[in-house]
């Protein structure tokens, strides 16, 4: 299942529409990274509201995506992890350390804007 990636200003929004196979996840990685480059995006929101299971491969892939986009100058935030899924992830030991997480799309965008402003201030202070 292909994950649609939408552009919203400086940010990209990837909304997962249903369960993803390993292949889908790998495609998402490739597509997001290339979309960040093409659009010179400053941030990415990955919306996993509909995802009913987050296993170690999915978590690993999302983490990779976050590291890669960061290297390319874009912050990444994952939003929409459901209560059940969060609970299972923690039992499994998947913490998504170092990756921003938010409640929903709105918070995600807010977090990206805040991170962007902070970085700009950092640049301006040099």
């Amino acid at each position, binding site marked *: 299942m292909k994950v649609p990636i939408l552009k919203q200003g400086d940010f990209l929004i990837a909304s997962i529409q*249903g369960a993803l196979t390993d292949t889908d996840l790998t495609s998402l990685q490739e597509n997001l990274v290339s979309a960040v480059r093409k659009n010179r995006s400053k941030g990415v929101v990955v919306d996993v509201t509909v995802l009913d299971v987050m296993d170690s491969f999915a978590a690993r892939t999302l983490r990779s995506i976050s590291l890669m986009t960061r290297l390319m100058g874009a912050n990444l935030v994952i939003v929409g992890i459901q*209560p*059940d899924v*969060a*609970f299972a*992830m923690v*039992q499994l030991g998947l913490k998504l350390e170092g990756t921003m*997480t938010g*409640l*929903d799309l709105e918070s995600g965008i807010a977090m990206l804007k805040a991170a962007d402003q902070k970085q700009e201030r950092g640049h301006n202070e040099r």
Partner: protein
Amino acid sequence: MSPSRTQLPEKFLTLAEMMNIGDQDLARRKEFLEFGPDDEERLHKLAPLAVNYAEDVIEAFYEHLLKFEEMKAFFPDNATLARVKAKQKAYFIRLTQGKYDLDYVEERLKIGSVHEQIDLPVKSYLGMYSFYLREAWKHIFESDRAQPDELITTFFSLMKLVFMDISLTIDTYIDSRERTIKSLQQEAIRELSTPVLPFREGMLLLPIIGQIDSQRARQLTEHLLESIRANRARVIVIDITGVATVDSRVANHLVQTVEAARLMGAEVVISGISPEIALTMVTLGIDLGSVHTVGDLQNGIEHAEQLMGYKVKQFGEVNDKNYGDGA
């Protein structure tokens, strides 16, 4: 493959066995409905026609169903609808094929159980069966107008079988419902002992009193996570003033709760760490890592407000003449 060494395998059961529906029960049901070998034969003869009209019946069926708002909720997207339609088609076709034995019963029980679990109301279920029978009759009647008597008998066979299905479905609803009620009761009792209190927008307070065992910890965490979603909370204060002892297991539960809350975008402050608990934790080498902790609830709330971006200012006393001049 060598079998498990460490434990005897549990007895494997069918749903039917769990509900005490065996050969005798099945025979009884058929007797009540006067469903016998003749009916089976008629249904099998109906099979080719049934396979033919299955598609039409399904389409008409879902067209009717989707007119109802409350039914639309069960089909959030096209993929789900397609999948359910395929299953429904298989169900209808099964009515006219194969043996009507305990395997058949098992399939029906499973369907009923799943439907009860997803909260499909009995009245919708019965409405669906009624619709199917009427549609099926239309097609059966069209198939051979020359022999109406035979068609009626065939239809009666179909009706008997559908009624047997309904009886099995209702039994699973009852069985399932009893279990759901029991577990809901247990859940209600647990929730009463671990309230999650919204205070100020985006903030939740979870006061914990008493012992925390694994079961309670889990229930606490689930309740909290669900509240985060429902209240769109960003900061949680977990107050453990009322918790007697904190050992490494309890600390572990707390850390896990914090981690799960973070995955949902919420930050957690743990307040109410008494000097005794602090000593125990240091002695045991318990490290709560990056979890915010404070001494008492008051501090906890203030800390939470800071995390939310509220500025907490101290106004003068009420009878101070400067009070109310704005700050």
